[in-house]
């Protein structure tokens, strides 16, 4: 039962990275790609119909974290306080700016465009730093209390992950635009995506090697690593032969793979500390009571299936490029 809910949490979090990742990627590239207002509207229009539905995967994931793993929830955010705070600042800025930017036809939008770009960058870096910290272990003492040092969560390894996620989300955003943006953007988006392949590969290699040296990760992490390299390989060949849809699916998988790696690296532990003799929390300790999991099992999976079906319909309805007849909202 606990394993099942760990998988649900993993599915929601990985789903969030696979979907919202291209929103942030597009946000980071907005200024580079959309050179005039009409262009920027179409770039934003590319993720328009998916935007709200993508972002709420995070809300759902945190909800499941709280509902099914309340004892993990209390440790994991407080333990990485500053990265989570900067993540929220970036996320709020990005999400609000996307939704408010284009609401008045006659207004100037420079500040909103800047807010979207900066928000997307901060979000990408913060996610990387946060996940990097989870790989290393959080700076928690034996009682599970965060140790005071501000810089503890900004270790070089975590910063590497921050930079890595800029590459992953950027790659994903560019691949997405190659599929969904109007045809005149395709060549440029493809070029950006190809330029980001090497940094993404460098990140994967360094993160895995350095992580293997630095941490005591178990072998259970291997499938996630294989998945990441496989996805990058597929993305590489697909981008070179301009098979953009394949490249998009591959980059979405690539962005989700680190989440799966974090979730499987320490099994059966859910969370470990980077401090010697520090705190650790097993999956069973992290989970709520069996009765509560039973109750959640009764309520949530049907809801999840229904929502996934509704979102699938959304994707099917908008599987062509943005063109003159596309509805622009953002």
């Amino acid at each position: 039962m606990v394993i099942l809910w760990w998988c649900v949490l993993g599915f929601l979090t990985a789903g969030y990275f696979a979907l919202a990742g291209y929103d942030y990627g597009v946000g980071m590239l907005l200024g580079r790609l959309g050179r005039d207002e009409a262009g920027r509207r179409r770039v934003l229009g590319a993720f328009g119909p998916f935007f709200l539905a993508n972002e709420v995967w995070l809300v759902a994931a945190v909800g499941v974290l709280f509902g099914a793993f309340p004892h993990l929830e209390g440790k994991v955010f407080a333990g990485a306080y500053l990265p989570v705070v900067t993540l929220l600042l970036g996320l709020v800025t990005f999400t609000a700016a996307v939704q408010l930017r284009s609401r008045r036809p006659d207004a100037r939008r420079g500040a909103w465009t800047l807010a979207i770009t900066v928000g997307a960058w901060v979000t990408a870096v913060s996610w990387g730093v946060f996940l990097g910290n989870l790989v290393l272990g959080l700076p928690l003492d034996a009682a599970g209390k965060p140790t005071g040092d501000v810089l503890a969560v900004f270790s070089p390894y975590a910063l590497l992950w921050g930079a890595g996620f800029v590459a992953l989300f950027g790659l994903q955003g560019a691949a997405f635009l190659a599929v969904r943006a109007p045809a005149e953007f395709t060549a440029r988006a493809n070029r950006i995506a190809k330029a980001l392949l090497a940094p993404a590969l460098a990140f994967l290699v360094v993160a895995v090697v350095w992580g293997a040296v630095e941490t005591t990760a178990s072998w259970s992490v291997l499938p996630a690593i294989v998945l990441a390299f496989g996805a990058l390989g597929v993305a590489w060949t697909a981008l070179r032969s301009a098979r953009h849809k394949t490249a998009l699916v591959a980059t979405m998988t690539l962005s989700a793979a680190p989440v799966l790696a974090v979730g499987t690296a320490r099994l059966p532990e859910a969370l470990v500390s980077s401090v010697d003799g520090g705190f650790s929390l097993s999956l069973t300790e992290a989970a709520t009571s069996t009765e509560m999991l039973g109750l959640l099992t009764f309520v949530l999976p049907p809801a999840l299936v229904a929502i996934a079906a509704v979102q699938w319909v959304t994707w099917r309805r908008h599987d062509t490029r943005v063109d003159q007849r596309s509805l622009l909202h953002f």
Partner: protein
Amino acid sequence: MDALPIARLQFATTTSFHFLFVLLTLGLVTLVAVMQTRSAFGAKPELTRMTRFWGKLYVINYALGIVTGIVMEFQFGLTWTGLSAVAGDVFGAPLAIETLVAFFAESTFLGLWIFGWGRLNKWVHLALIWLVTLTAYASALFIMVANSFLQNPVGTHAENGVLKLDDFGALFTNPALTSSLPHVLSAALMTGGFFVVGVSAYHFIKRTKEIEFFQRSMRIGVLTSLVGSTLVIGFGFAQFGPLGEYHPGKLEGADPIVGVSLGFMIQIGFIAFLASILGTLLLFRNWITKVRPLLYVMVLAIPLPFVAAILGWLVREIGRQPWLIRGQLTTADAVAAIPAGQILFSFIAFTLLFLVLAIADWVLMSRVAKRGPEPVEEAAAPRAELPVLSGV
């Protein structure tokens, strides 16, 4: 420097901002759904344009409701770690259900509604706005279940300092919930009504040409305010009985803020009620749109329900102190062991960001509100060389 007061201020600020936006979201979406229903069953073009115009304002307001809500959700884990340690097995479930069943669905349906304008079957599109409304109310229900549990932890027993759930159903029959939920929902209706009335009044002050558009809006707004304010007062006073039983002495507690806030909230409630009755009487022959001094009062009254709601929230939450979960966990014990400096940093950063975004959002709303509805021909046929905008 003590972390506790800063962490409390941080949560209070986030929640206050969140509350301001969700209150109008709940009220306005109901009005929009009613307008769209009438538009679907009748053939009045005015009602379709009303759905678009008020829907546009609703969508702008919704944006900040989401983002402040995300920050609130994270703060349980960021600063109130004691809560999940003691009551995670109980408190987590309603929150998880809220996010998945209600909020996740609400945003998905809203996205479909926005991008379905003129593209989906009229009845499917109508069903979507009702689904958005329904899930928004479901959100309110589950959040109030969680909050009411903090006020009055029913259906549980403590075991080694950890709360265990005995009866999930008891969370829904909690006396702290049953009278406060309708109170909050009717407050939202009243807020939506006052908003629509105030914006319509502005256009009559400016001698709008859209007479029928704003007369209809005004009528729906006034009637909603009447229903909302009547219920809000009724359910407000109905709370005193159960409150006296599950939390005796709450309103006479040590903190004078509680008493003062309660007094002002009740005053505003009665003013709103009397104003709604007057407005309803003046609907006769549309006198309401012709008494100019009153129109100014209606514009100025837009913020009143918001003020009352914040005051009511202060009564409920400060009245609970020093407990986070009454009788089980104090706020001081629940706060995380984060250095005060870091919490101060996040408090300042969140507050500044919310302030900037809220002001930007309200300026945007007031500009869109002042522009009034789209001219008839533009709503009907978009020109080919321009991008097709969603219209909401």
